[in-house]
């Protein structure tokens, strides 16, 4: 009985008052419909506000009207409803792709999700320049790996404008990192972006340099790796 009642209640929230089991509630039907509408409004409002909170950059670019229409359709099609509100937007970028959204804008929705991941990530120490050994032999043995808060995003004009750096037009990508409590952004030229790509698995400084040695010399490789470290995108240890 309890399960049937809750399933009927849920159907009425999803479908509307026609799905409300007639015998479930006492009191005048008009009052019960009013109450169900209030519950449905609370639920819808909670979901849509969560979507707004998760995707501020994407929303800022496409505008409130388009964002609200899209996020409402996403929720009404049943996406993102099976975790808590903090997970409601997890598949929104994929849904946007299926919905025909422009590639640049899908990347910005992914950027918004990455921001939250970075902001709430476990407090893992960052590899800073000060932690690098001064001895070159020791430096080459230093293990490099991605910090769990860090991510990389294709640089397009909409994203660069949204994060306040239209002047980074020459960057191939934007590196996102978190140092202490703040999420930070750095421009990533092509070689820095490639170094990030190669660090899908941890490597020593020397091994990373060796991966580029056929096409680049040390005078370009080492500064690229140093720039990657300086961005806060790698972890200590």
């Amino acid at each position, binding site marked *: 009985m309890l399960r049937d009642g809750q399933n009927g*209640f849920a159907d009425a929230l999803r479908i509307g008052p026609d799905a409300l089991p007639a015998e*479930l509630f*006492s009191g005048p039907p008009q009052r019960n419909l009013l109450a169900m509408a209030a519950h449905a409004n609370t639920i819808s409002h909670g979901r849509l506000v969560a979507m707004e909170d998760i995707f501020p950059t994407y929303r800022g670019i496409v505008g409130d009207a388009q964002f609200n229409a899209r996020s409402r359709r996403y929720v009404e099609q049943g996406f993102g409803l099976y975790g808590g509100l903090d997970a409601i937007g997890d598949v929104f970028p994929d849904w946007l792709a299926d919905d025909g959204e422009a590639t640049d804008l899908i990347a910005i929705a992914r950027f918004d999700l990455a921001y939250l991941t970075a902001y709430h990530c476990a*407090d893992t120490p960052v590899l800073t320049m000060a932690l690098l050994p001064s001895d070159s032999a020791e430096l080459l043995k230093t293990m490099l790996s991605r910090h769990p808060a860090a991510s990389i995003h294709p640089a397009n004009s909409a994203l660069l404008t949204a994060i306040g750096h239209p002047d980074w037009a020459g960057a191939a990508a934007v590196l996102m990192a*978190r140092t202490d409590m703040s999420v930070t952004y750095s421009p990533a030229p092509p070689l820095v972006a490639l170094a990030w790509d190669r660090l899908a698995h941890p490597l020593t400084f020397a091994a990373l340099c060796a991966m580029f040695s056929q096409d680049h010399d040390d005078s370009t490789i080492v500064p690229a790796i140093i720039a990657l470290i300086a961005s806060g995108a790698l972890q200590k240890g």
Partner: protein
Amino acid sequence: MTDLPSPTGTLPWRAGVGLKPQHYAPLLEQPSDSVRPFWVEIHPQNYFRDGGASRQWLSRVADVFPVSFHSTGLSLGSADGPDLDQLERLARLMADIPAASVSDHLSWSRTSGEYFPDLLPIPYTRESLERMCASVDLVQQRLGRRMLVENPSRMLAFRGDSMDEVDFLTRLCAATGCGILLDINNVIVSAINVGIDAQAYLDAVDPALVGEIHLAGHNREEHDSGPLAIDDHGSAISKDCWDHYERFIARAGPIPTLIERDNNIPDLDELLAEAMRADNILTACQKDVGIAA
């Protein structure tokens, strides 16, 4: 019922406020001789992530104030049982941040895996009671402590109810050893919406079961079918709520009391003014019964 610590935990018998991000810094920067809450309450779901600024702020606040964990996501009344993912995340947070009290609601928010961000009502039947008892037992076992269960604000009453809400909560406490988080505003909201007698409800509550009180405001809509009260936690505490609170405390003695505001968050000073009003009622009562404040 298992042998677990007291439902009142370590919350002081004084007034607290809900912790909001805009108040992190003002709370921690206040001089120790200024007006301060005696404890704070959080929605733990806001701190379930692994790290970052919000967790760091909470850690700093918890070094200074006792923290009550008022969960909104366990879905204790769900026919499917409580949300085990939420329970594990709550347990993990409590391993990092000491909780002076733990509570959730007499409601459900999940069925067949779908999550509804609202506190939905349950019928007051023997079947619901058994389900709630099993859920509260499971949560208390996992957390290793007693919890409080909050009376809901109701807009709907079920045709099949076989007991009233106070009877339901009292039986739940007797069967599981949990306590009641008595939200006086919710009683008033239910009185407006489903016609219960608020004073009779409060008179029927056994004060020994109450580990915490919530005071809040609500929104009121006028409809052809009569007023509809919405428990939006977005306004100042009503005179009606204060009056009921004073009468209940006069009968019950001091009980940790929260000023609850989740929308239209005012300045900290405004919240603290309401907290001090509640605290004056609590400390006056403590003097009456010979307890040092």
